[in-house]
């Protein structure tokens, strides 16, 4: 959505395919989500973006929006991403993931996306150290996490993917 680094979007799509085995499809760039902008906070409401995304009629199981603006929830000052637990829509913000090191930026974006897709699969935050489903409250924590789930979350993700698709195969924007 909006003015976006398409390389980041491609990296996210490739990682979702490689790590979770999801079939991904990149949809045309949509306009900036101005409907979600809150002037008082100078940020975009992640919840409103999710609502709009979930309402889009598309046959895909999951819809993942990638935005370059800073997003928030009514209770948190900012979030790296937001998603509906066990639902259809998720959003990833590249705003705080930005780094002078491009590889690091893309790595962060991929981690946020996989974490949010984990929520769409119904997986909650994990307390196992070095699991991507752990809650990242800052960039330091996000950078310290590997690009994979722990054994238990991995098993759960595979189980839910099998339940949803039989065998891997799905589209995502």
């Amino acid at each position, binding site marked *: 959505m909006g003015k976006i680094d398409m390389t980041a979007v491609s990296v996210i799509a490739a990682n979702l395919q490689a790590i979770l085995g999801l079939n991904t499809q990149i949809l045309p760039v949509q306009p900036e989500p101005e409907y979600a902008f809150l002037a008082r906070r100078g940020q975009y409401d992640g919840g409103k973006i999710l609502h709009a995304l979930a309402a889009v009629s598309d046959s895909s199981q999951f819809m993942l929006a990638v935005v370059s603006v800073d997003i928030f*929830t009514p*209770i*948190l000052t900012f*979030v790296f991403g937001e998603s509906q637990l066990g639902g259809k829509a998720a959003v990833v913000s590249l705003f705080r993931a930005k780094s002078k090191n491009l590889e690091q930026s893309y790595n962060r974006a991929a981690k946020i996306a996989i974490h949010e897709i984990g929520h769409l699969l119904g997986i909650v*935050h994990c307390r196992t150290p070095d699991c991507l489903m752990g809650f990242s*409250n800052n960039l330091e924590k996000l950078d310290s996490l590997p690009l994979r789930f722990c054994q238990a979350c991995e098993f759960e993700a595979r189980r839910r993917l099998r339940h949803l698709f039989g065998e891997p195969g799905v589209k995502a924007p």
Partner: protein
Amino acid sequence: MKSSTHIMVVDDEETICEALMAWFVKDGYKVETALSGEGALEYLQGNDIDIFLVDIKMPGMNGIELLSRIKEKQPAAAVIMMTAHGSIQTAVEAMKLGASDYLCKPFDPDALSLLMERVMMQKTLQKENTILKERLLEQQEEAADVFIVHSEQMRKIFSTVDEVAPSSAPILITGETGVGKDIVARAIHLRSQRSYGPFVAVNCGALSESLLESELFGHEKGAFTGAMKTRRGRLEMADSGTLFLDEIGEISTKMQIVLLRVLEEKQFLRLGGSSPVSSDFRLITATHRDIPPLIKEKQFREDFYYRINVIKIHIPPLRERQDDIPALADHFLKRYVEDTGKHLEGFTQKAIEHLISYSWPGNVRELRNVIERAVVIARGYIIGTDELKFLDPGKLSCETPSGTLEQIEMNHIKSTLASCDGNISHTAKKLGINRSTLSRKMKQYQLTTLSMAK
């Protein structure tokens, strides 16, 4: 732990409730929401919540009011207050009322996760603490079982113990040596509100005056030759617990004056120290001596006696509560059988009678030692009089029998028959009468040899 933790979010703004609920659900908690304080209280009827997140500013019942209502209904619950308008004064008020923490909306993700970690840690410790307390209580009950009471006198003592234990009033326990004054003192401590505090016992009779002083009050480094480092005294160690001073009748009048002042002021100085030390303890004292005559002889101060003798518990000697002897003997037998691994099933009737008729000058302690010795020397499966031969026969009590002449005669024949294992010839010989006279008397008193043979 997390999935079983039940959280309730109370905020009049639906978006806040929804957003918090979504976050907590993703974090693995079970979450409820309420849009008002009244709604939250309604849910609390019959439901338990571990952690509350409560908005301070709400129409109707505000967050502060809800906080105090929650603390009334569920004191163990953690309550985190939230506000969009940070005000130190309200925060202080909330913390005074028992809130766990205070957050300004919107929260920094770092602050929220750190806070939740801290609250969860507190809840875990709280739960662990409850479990440990329950376990301790079970152990305490087991320890109290050691005090076997069958006699009416001891039952009365234990009902007194139950009555006086919760208060902090000083208790004086009197009784002969070996009756278990220390066990009663410990039982009082275990049943008191100080049971989680320490139980510190000092035997005043075993220490010289200067040693006792240093033992009780502690000393500062260099207070006297050999005082290499500062040492806490027993009075200090007993803080928030019970101090048990055994053989209080042995302490000097000078020490009585010092202790009296400590009891009045609850403060004292370490030897060589200049700053007062406070200690909050319950005092239990014990003595085998009769104090009032000592007061007359000016060996014991009257004011100190009245200070320690607020509640008096007298434990009668074992010979005055013979009903307890078989039960105690059984109890000690089981204990020593376990310790030694011997297969002993009990006592013969004669052995029990022998134990009952003994005067027990050393009381329960002596009985325990006798049983221990009997278990060690026993060769069969049962302890008989042979194993108790070492009991000093001179200390067998010679009670004057009471009752009519006929009753006395019947009882004497009965006990002699029992001691001869129901053998008529032996019994007759022992009683100094012939067999036919014995048979006639047994018929008269309806005694049979079968019931006598043990």
